[in-house]
């Protein structure tokens, strides 16, 4: 009886869509909780990744040392870390028998933040290195003429590159909030504890609860689009004011 079943499927997808919209529009508490946790985890990871990645990027950008080319290759390679591998490595360290198992962090939001930080810190470092190196090439001689200290020079570079660096941060956030491989391994997708948008979508879809999955998908899509719109707006603003 293929035909009726097919119809029924179509029917249920339509129903799921309606339900999904209703969930989003009514501000369903479960949905909000998942979205809030997603944002908390990924924003925190982005902030920490910037704290780690920006200084590294800046340092490599303005320094000349032996083996610098190797450092650059490694930084660029780390940008493409597969989320599941990062998840696995963090899992091995945080699991009860692992070296950091005593911290009891596995299956907590903190574990998810750690995994996402490891995932995007190289992105922030590598992209900001490129941005700052180009600017440094332009400013270096003038700065030497002005006898700026290294700290003064770095501060000025970071400030003048602020628009580009913001887009670097947004790129990191975009990757963090959309990845599923790392957070599902170290977070475990536990309801009310470590369930974020991507893991919930994966789970609810496999369970057949399409409404929640679709609703979360809509929210995730909206966030991704907003991030991209923000990047574009920043670029435009910066260009108009000749800050790039």
């Amino acid at each position, binding site marked *: 009886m293929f035909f009726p079943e097919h119809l029924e499927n179509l029917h249920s997808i339509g129903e799921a869509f309606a339900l999904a919209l209703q969930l989003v529009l009514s501000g369903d508490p479960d949905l909000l909780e998942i979205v809030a946790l997603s944002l908390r985890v990924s924003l925190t990871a982005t902030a920490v990744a910037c704290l780690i990645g920006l200084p590294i990027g800046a340092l490599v950008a303005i320094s000349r040392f032996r083996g610098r080319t190797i450092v650059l290759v490694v930084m660029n390679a780390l940008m493409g870390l597969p989320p599941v591998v990062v998840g696995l490595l963090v899992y091995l360290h945080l699991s009860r028998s692992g070296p950091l198992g005593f911290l009891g962090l596995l299956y907590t939001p903190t574990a998810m933040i750690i995994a996402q930080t490891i995932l995007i810190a190289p992105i922030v470092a590598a992209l900001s290195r490129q941005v700052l190196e180009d600017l440094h090439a332009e400013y270096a001689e*003038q700065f*030497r003429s002005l*006898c*700026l200290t290294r700290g003064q020079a770095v*501060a*000025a570079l970071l400030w003048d590159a602020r628009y580009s660096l913001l887009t670097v941060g947004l790129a990191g956030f975009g990757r963090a909030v959309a990845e599923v491989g790392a957070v599902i391994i170290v977070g475990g997708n536990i309801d009310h504890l470590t369930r974020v948008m991507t893991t919930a979508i994966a789970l609810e879809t496999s369970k057949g609860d399409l409404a929640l999955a679709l609703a979360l998908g809509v929210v995730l899509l909206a966030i991704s689009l907003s991030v991209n719109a923000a990047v574009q707006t920043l670029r435009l603003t910066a260009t108009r004011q000749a800050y790039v």
Partner: protein
Amino acid sequence: MSDAVTLTPPSTVDDRTNGLILPLRVRDLVLRLGEAPVLDGLNLDLGPTGCTMVMGPNGSGKSLLLKLLHGLAQPTSGQIVWGEHTAADVTARQALVFQKPVLLRRSVAANLDFVLRMRGKNRGRRDALLDHVGLAHKANQPARLLSGGEAQRLALARALATDPEVLFLDEPTASLDPASVMAIEQIVSDARLRGVRIIFVTHDLGQARRMANDVVFLHRGRLAEHTAASEFFPEPQSQAARDYLSGRIVV
């Protein structure tokens, strides 16, 4: 900009050297970039005051000489002695207006604020400096949208903001209109009267005549001659300078 930056004692750079940084003595200066030397065995003595014009055809090494004297680059061999100091030790007491000025991605006023703050100068001087170079009405515009001539003027204001004892100018009026050229020359002359030692690269013969006390003429990386202005213009010593002044191409 973090406040920590403003708190770093600005005097450290200036305290590094005391005493006079003039006269300047250059001995057997050689700079090699790649195969051929771009500066080849320069000997030069510059007195403590006045305005020295550095002239010579394109590519003769004028800009590179200024960078070496200012301590921005290391010569391959030879000596540069400012008073009793090396070039690198006195960079902070000099200012260089580059041939292609590099301005920060900030407003015109913020470009001056930056230098005044970094060098521990009185920030109240900013408006006077802008006025001095005729940019007061552009204070809040992005510096990188300035015209070529306006950018040169901002670069000059920035150089003056550091209260240099020696001011290097690398073709600072190359893209200015005649009135602005006069204004810049007036500013530079004022600085010279205040005791600032001026070292000025130009291709503008009229300007050289108006400003020079003495002329350093470079040709293919060598010092063709160093002559007082009163002699150089009527009667240059070297064939290269004679050709240059009469408009014949010498490269």
